[in-house]
């Protein structure tokens, strides 16, 4: 569930707000809902990996990857027809890492500041 929360709220807010809003979103939701460090990190990571990858695909496929292949060359890759896949992976990874570490930070902040003796159920 946490993964869906993070993905959905990140999706909605990014229509109005800058990209870095994904960090507080993952932090806050993990603070609220994460069951463990692992759970927090992978929920944040996968949510944004998928969200950014899908959104990028949504833009690049109708474009026949014309722009992503050019940007790949800007990043120093040769003039290949597959640059767009590299760019897609880099993009998804950037979002995933920010979200994953933010979620991890959210979970540990909760552990530090609101310690609860009983185990929480994973959501």
């Amino acid at each position, binding site marked *: 569930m946490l993964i869906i929360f993070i993905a959905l709220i990140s999706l909605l807010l990014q229509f109005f707000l800058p990209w870095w809003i994904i960090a507080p979103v993952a932090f806050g939701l993990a603070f609220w809902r994460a069951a463990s460090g692992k759970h927090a990190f992978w929920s944040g990571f996968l949510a944004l990996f998928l969200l950014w990858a899908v959104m990028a695909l949504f833009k690049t496929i*109708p474009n026949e990857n014309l*722009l992503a292949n050019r940007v790949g060359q*800007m990043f120093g890759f040769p003039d290949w027809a597959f640059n767009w896949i590299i760019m897609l992976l880099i993009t998804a990874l950037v979002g995933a890492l920010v979200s994953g570490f933010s979620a991890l930070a959210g979970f540990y*902040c909760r*552990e*530090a*500041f609101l310690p609860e003796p009983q185990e929480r159920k994973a959501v």
Partner: protein
Amino acid sequence: MRYLKALGFTLIALILTVVLNTKFGDTPPLGKLLNPFRGFWQNAEPRHYDKENTLKIRGLKGTVSVAFDERMVPHIFANNDYDLYFAQGYITAKDRLWQMDFQTRFAAGRLSEVVGSKAIELDRYQRRMGMAYGAENMIKVIAEKYPEVGKITDAYADGVNAYINSLSPAEYPIEFKILDYKPEKWTSLNSALLLKLMSATLAGGSDEFYMSNILKKFGPDVTKNLFPDYPFREDPIIPKGTAWDFKPLEIPKAPDNPTSMQNSSIRTKQKVDGIGSNNWAVSGSKSASGYPLLENDPHLDLTLPAIWYQIQLNAPGVNVYGVSIPGSPCVIIGYNQKVAWGVTNVGSDVLDWYNIQFKDASHKEYFYDNKWNSVKQRIEHIAIRGGETVDDTVLYTHHGPVVYLDNKKPKKFSKAANVPTGHALRWIAHEGSPDVYTFHLLNRAKNYADYRKALTYYYAPAQNFAFASVDNYIAITPNGYFPLKWEGQGKFLLDGSKPENDWHGRIPAEQNPTVKNPPRGFISSANQSSTDQTYPYYLSWEFGSYNRGHRINKRLTVMNHATVDSIRSLQNDNYSILAEDILPTLLHAVNTEKLSATENEAFNLVKDWDKFYNADAIGASIFEIWQAKLGMEIWNDEFGGAVPMRMPSRDRTVELLLNEPNAKWYDNVNTPQKETRQDLVLHSFKFSVDSLQRKYGSIGKSWQWANVKHSHVPHLAKIAGFGSKTLMNGGSKSSVNALGETNGPSWRMIVALGKPNKGFGVFPGGESGNPGSFFYDNLIDTWTNGKLNELLFMNSKTDQSNHIKKRTTLTNN
């Protein structure tokens, strides 16, 4: 431990986010650039687009219809001039906003705001040359004297701003995201800056610093001999023998000792010859249709987004098609249903340097006309990204700005190499002028008289305006503000304390050289001398070489029943007059017994070469390097030393090679033995073969001219991946098809006058400035192949045509 983990991971997340949101040096902020909601993915345009849409735009007076053809060229239909220019601004910005913004910043000396302190010397230079000062003068003069021009540029600016205001950050052009900045409000001043930038590109060169150094080292006789005031071979724009039917003003008398002397120790590069343009028109008597044909191909440093933007503008009183400069209203080169026109650069001397004698180190007063005069200060505030604003004080005399004081010139900044320190700059680009009005009137011109009237508003950069009309007039006018000068004024640095060295007003606009319907049945220009030596006024001592012009005239002379195709074949002509002039002499001077096997093979290739710089010609590659090296070997020992000088022109080099086999210039003064012409010709030939061999292996396909020349179109900010691939083109700087490595025909146009007029054209790029658009570089292949597209000229907004692919309505409610 708990707290430590919390703190640690929070810090990691925070640092990661901040780092990915920050620009480091030239590395863009990755999170901002890559995120698919606002980053570069948003600039990926789909191949399929809406066929019809309506945009609500506040500020329009009425409704504007825009039809887009299959090349996405907008055809704008408005009910009044305000809406017309508003829509031109809006639509142009939609395709080219970043290019407009970046070029304006470049012109104004404001790049440091975007790219940081690495651009500071460039910004300082642009400001010290008075670019912004000139643009401000233009705005001032327009406001005071030409309110009708102000209305045009203001309407255009309103349109650009309406587009900017409609943008969300996700919609910013990709380069804003890569360089991490935002578009800013557009003003008429920006349009003025772009026109000043054209002056800087086309009329901003100067050699007088070098020429004065040459005069000092070699004396007046040698200087006159090697740098004559009229070329050895010429085929002027206004045909030889054309009569001047006006009474000239009194020509100022040359003073006895006008020059100032100065030199310093900065090495410079040889001036690049061959950046120029062609235009010509043949009269109905020489065409198959009985109506004139006009062509134009302006050569510039090619870039993507394309330099030009095709557009059709229609409103009551005007219906015109052609290319515009993104950022400036009107069509600059084009045609309507009555007339067609095109421009090439004149290259007259409109930039002079005056030595300034200051009273003392405070630089508050300078000596002029036997008294001390006060210096005006203009303080330039240069904002720097990630740093503090730098204030730069520029001193202005009545001549213009003192670009660099003694010892204040930056050492490693090549743009400033030709600037003499302690000299004030008098430059036509500082003048306030209504140039835009010329194009506004040409767009609406119906006949020869309208053309002549339109030209009187044009100042700079001076252009050869070729003209043809459906009522069978052809004409050409080297036109602009030509200062009235004494013979040779400004060939060398001038003493700025004497009033007789100032410009003496201007040549009356109606006395600018011009010719109408000459007996030879055609007019043409290719940057060569404007006139023969009978023109009463002095324009300059040196123009572009006669090579292209001569080839054009030779072919037009024998051309009859001309069609669009015969004109197009001349546009793509790769023949080299330079090779025709000197190759036989060079070949004759080579002692083939001294050649190796490879050199012999190369010699035979160049001997059998047909002198066309075709893409597959190996002889062209050998000759090109050979003649360039030979020029260097002749002159570099005398003119390439520590004192900055330039070399004699190619024309003078040709004369030397043909007529002066025993000249002392062949000897390399740095060696004990005496070199002859034969030694240099042989040595430079061996050098050519050797350098090709080192770079391309043994003689074969890889030696072909297109491969050696390596033509391509780079991105305006040199972003990798955003430029073109290597283009396998022929052409050379001395051919009519003047395509070099990255400069060449930036727009090729042919207009077949008649009823109706038909236009054909192409440029190396596309209408869109977005590298993520299918219309970014879609015209390059057509251009590379030397073909043209038939242009869609609509008569009314209701015209139906298969070529119309999209219709947009702009409304104010």
